[in-house]
């Protein structure tokens, strides 16, 4: 409480200083008689003509998650068939000569980078789609992307396409196509969130059956391979998969900046949002297309890593207690879940290696349930 107040006071001092220099500051504005009109819980950052609202608690959570993520990254590079001391890991990361360069830099790092990017992409995707659908259960798994990617990939494998350089693109195409189908059916002069989710579920189920049909009728070995892919695995993944994903993420940054602002309005009911001048259809389509692209590309890189897109935003939301799903924190949370999940997947039953998708749900789900139970007992609400 006191910390927040201090922050606000500091922001107000900053504000007062600027206003003073501007020279058109009404005296009554900061007088004790008038309440301070400020979006509570936010800090105002000013830079030249620009001013930005930052959710204060989200900022703190973001910093904490970054520190945790850095720890998980180092731990993940230390642990493996042979243990590498953290100091050596840091030397490799800094590009200094080290005897462990091969193990850490060549074997473990590419896989880790892929995991990080996949986590970021799924975390963002889930946050965008849940925001757009105003539904905590909406995620790329639900609206058809994952199943579209799955069906396309399994079909390609069944028909003899096994090249790991081509398959990711097939999967991306499958995810996008499935989403396109959802849009086509859901669009009726506008995009209603509930219809979008329901049609998505329908298409998901249909594509899921198609995948199972291919698995049962196809070659046994192909089915085995496809099964691993369908669980989501980082095994054998490296820069070949990470590079396209990184490119897409960088290209999407301007759009994500737009989304970070646009989503503020979409948390209202339709009427209130429109009354506030928000172009709801454009915001909905924009947010969901961003989410679909991110999920498709991430699925192409590592397969459908279960639940990350569903869990990460919800966990981030509860940690930040923001009135919206925080984008950056969701991305960091997604990365954290995947990195820790993959660490467990590699080492828990070593030398047997499991797909990361098995563990992301195992790590995230209990934590989310604990958070929900805890928040329910202290305060009602906070489900979306």
């Amino acid at each position, binding site marked *: 409480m006191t910390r927040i107040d201090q922050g606000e006071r500091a922001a107000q001092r900053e504000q007062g200083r600027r206003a003073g220099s501007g020279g058109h500051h009404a005296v009554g504005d900061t007088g004790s008689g008038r309440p301070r009109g400020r979006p509570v819980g936010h800090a105002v950052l000013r830079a030249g003509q620009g001013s930005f609202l930052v959710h204060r608690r989200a900022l703190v959570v973001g910093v904490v998650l970054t520190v945790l993520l850095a720890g998980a990254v180092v731990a993940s590079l230390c642990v493996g068939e042979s243990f590498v001391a953290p100091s050596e890991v840091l030397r490799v990361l800094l590009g200094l000569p080290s005897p462990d360069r091969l193990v850490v830099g060549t074997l473990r790092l590419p896989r880790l980078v892929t995991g990080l990017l996949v986590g970021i992409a799924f975390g963002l995707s889930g946050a965008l789609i849940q925001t757009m659908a105003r539904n905590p259960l909406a995620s790329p798994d639900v609206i058809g992307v994952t199943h579209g990617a799955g069906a396309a990939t399994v079909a390609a494998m069944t028909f003899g396409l096994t090249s790991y350089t081509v398959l990711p693109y097939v999967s991306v195409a499958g995810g996008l196509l499935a989403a396109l189908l959802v849009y086509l059916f859901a669009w009726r002069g506008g995009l209603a969130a509930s219809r979008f989710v329901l049609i998505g579920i329908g298409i998901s189920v249909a594509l899921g059956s198609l995948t199972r049909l291919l698995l049962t009728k196809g070659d046994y070995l192909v089915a085995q391979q496809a099964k691993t892919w369908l669980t989501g695995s980082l095994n054998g993944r490296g820069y070949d998969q990470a590079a396209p994903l990184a490119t897409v993420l960088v290209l999407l940054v301007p759009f994500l900046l737009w989304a970070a602002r646009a989503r*503020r309005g979409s948390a209202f009911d339709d009427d209130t949002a429109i009354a506030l001048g928000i172009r709801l259809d454009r915001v909905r389509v924009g947010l969901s297309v961003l989410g679909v692209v991110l999920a498709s590309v991430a699925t192409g890189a590592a397969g459908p890593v279960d639940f990350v897109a569903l869990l990460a935003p919800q966990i981030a939301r509860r940690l930040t207690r923001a*009135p919206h799903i925080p984008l950056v924190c969701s991305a960091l949370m997604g990365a954290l879940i995947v990195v820790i999940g993959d660490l467990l997947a590699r080492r828990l039953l070593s030398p047997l290696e499991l797909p990361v998708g098995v563990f992301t749900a195992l790590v995230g789900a209990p934590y989310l349930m604990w958070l929900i139970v805890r928040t329910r007992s202290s305060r009602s609400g906070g489900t979306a």
Partner: protein
Amino acid sequence: MTGNRPTAPGPSRLAARRLTLAYEDRTVVEELDLDVPDGKVTVIVGPNACGKSTLLRALGRLLKPRRGAVLLDGTELARLPTKRIAQVIGLLPQTPVPPEGITVGDLIARGRQPHQKWWQQWSETDETSVSEAMQRTGTADLAERPVDELSGGQRQRVWIAMALAQDTDLLLLDEPTTYLDIAHQVEVLDLVRQLNRERGRTVVAVLHDLNQAARYADHLIAMCAGRIVAQGAPGDIVTAELVQEVFGLASVVVPDPVTGGPMVVPGPLRSPDGTSAGDDVPGGAGGGATVPAARDAAW
């Protein structure tokens, strides 16, 4: 009263021309003309399903006209960017839903949305408007509280504060007193009238309660079955015949003991069609003729 062609009682920034409104295949309002008088409080009344809320939604571009147009300063609403409309017209829907877990201060600040750009998210003007809105609505002390925890009356004040922070010349309110007890209803309506008097804001409100409408309106519009049956100053148009025509209710119109304006008292209690008319009594909560009588006594 029927056949009264709407005439502009003065300048009008917001107007409807041959407006036809429909949901799916059900036409609710047909060929309606309306001029909203600037700087006045206009109240729309009428029985349930008469199209009053639908009309308000169209005036606030929440509903696209099937035919005809709503004009803002002579330009069709449909041709204006929704954000620009939001800088001129504020609108409070009947049951607005806040973002979950949002605090009062944050919610009121969202009213500034139409004046912001993504690289200008919080200006001096934003701050001034929000603090003024808080002050006028007495919501400053609630700023840190989550909206979910507020009582109905507090919540409505917060929503009105948000609409005020939007700082628009026109304010449309869809039944702003629903769910409120009598004291809070009066409080909200007093606030609305005060805003109009002090700032010259044009207000259009849909109200359920005929007596409240008569009391707070400068310009009263009575609607029935999608048409405007009568409009004008309440003292000029509220008569027992009008109440009979619009609501199908037998009543006596007497001078309001406080304002001297018209006050509708339902009765005689055992009118031949009393049972069916009882459903149409404005004021909602209890229905029946005795409840409005009790409410009038409270005035």
